[in-house]
């Protein structure tokens, strides 16, 4: 039979963490900081300018890893949404919302770095290039999802609606990508493409950059997930408290 109150004897032997950090994330964090420093030095100082792109390649060291990784949290959000519909647990809900948040950061950065790269190589920030346009629409899709999640509503209703919109993220992104690519292929100049093979110390610099961004993605995802989980728990706590108060109001004797 469970007691209604907790006593000091029930307190867990291990102290609960006071933040979303843990040993693994701290190690990751240090690796990221060190790796970033090395990567920045390599990318900005010691590596050579590209034969064709000249120094625009230095933006590639940031842009390519970001766009190569940005689909992972998007897909994760859709998958988590499907799993939530089947299992209805907070964990999947937290995974869906946190992945979308991380995805928005990566997609947004991909857009900005892509536009800046275009500014250097093509002379303008925006050319309605297929990749850039699809990414912009993906960003808007994500913003819509995030706006939905922030909406004040019953947690269960919000989770349900978010799940459906989340599942649709991947099909929408695919449809957008396909239609925009087809559209732009009808107009594409041959000169738009760039020889993107990397030689010499460019390759090693890129490898460092890619590695660091993978670590960044993992670190952000872990923290975001734990945050989302805590937020759901806090909401539930508020709800229980409100219900308990209401019951206490209705029954002056205190319940039992």
């Amino acid at each position, binding site marked *: 039979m469970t007691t209604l109150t907790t006593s000091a004897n029930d307190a867990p032997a291990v102290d609960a*963490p*006071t*933040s*979303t950090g843990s040993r693994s994330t701290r190690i990751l964090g240090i690796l990221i900081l060190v790796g970033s420093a090395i990567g920045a030095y390599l990318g*900005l100082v010691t590596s050579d300018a590209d034969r064709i792109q000249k120094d625009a390649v230095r933006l590639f060291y940031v842009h390519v890893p970001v766009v190569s990784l940005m689909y992972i949290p998007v897909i994760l959000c859709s998958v988590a949404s499907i799993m939530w519909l089947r299992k209805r647990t907070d964990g999947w809900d937290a995974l869906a919302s946190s992945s979308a948040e991380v995805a928005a*950061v990566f997609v947004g950065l991909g857009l900005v770095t892509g536009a800046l*790269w275009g500014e250097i190589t093509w002379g303008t920030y925006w050319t309605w290039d297929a990749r850039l346009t699809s990414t912009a629409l993906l960003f808007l899709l994500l913003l819509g999802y995030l706006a939905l999640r922030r909406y004040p509503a019953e947690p269960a209703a919000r989770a349900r609606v978010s799940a459906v919109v989340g599942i649709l993220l991947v099909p929408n992104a695919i449809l957008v990508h396909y239609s925009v690519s087809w559209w732009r292929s009808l107009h594409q100049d041959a000169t738009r493409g760039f020889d993107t093979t990397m030689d010499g110390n460019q390759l090693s610099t890129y490898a460092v950059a890619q590695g660091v961004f993978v670590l960044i993605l993992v670190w952000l995802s872990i923290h975001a997930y734990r*945050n989302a989980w805590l937020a759901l728990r806090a909401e539930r*706590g508020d709800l229980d408290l409100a219900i308990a108060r209401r019951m206490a109001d209705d029954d002056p004797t205190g319940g039992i």
Partner: protein
Amino acid sequence: MLLAYTDVGTIVFGWGITVAAIGGYALALVRRGKRLSRVVPPEDRRWS
């Protein structure tokens, strides 16, 4: 050496925005995490 190449401004800006965005988001996450951890009971905070 840093200033010797073309389009320095744009490139530095690009790196800068990346650092700012990721760093800023990371900071926001950590702060939000600390705040939420204070509110949520210990049984629900199980990671180390």
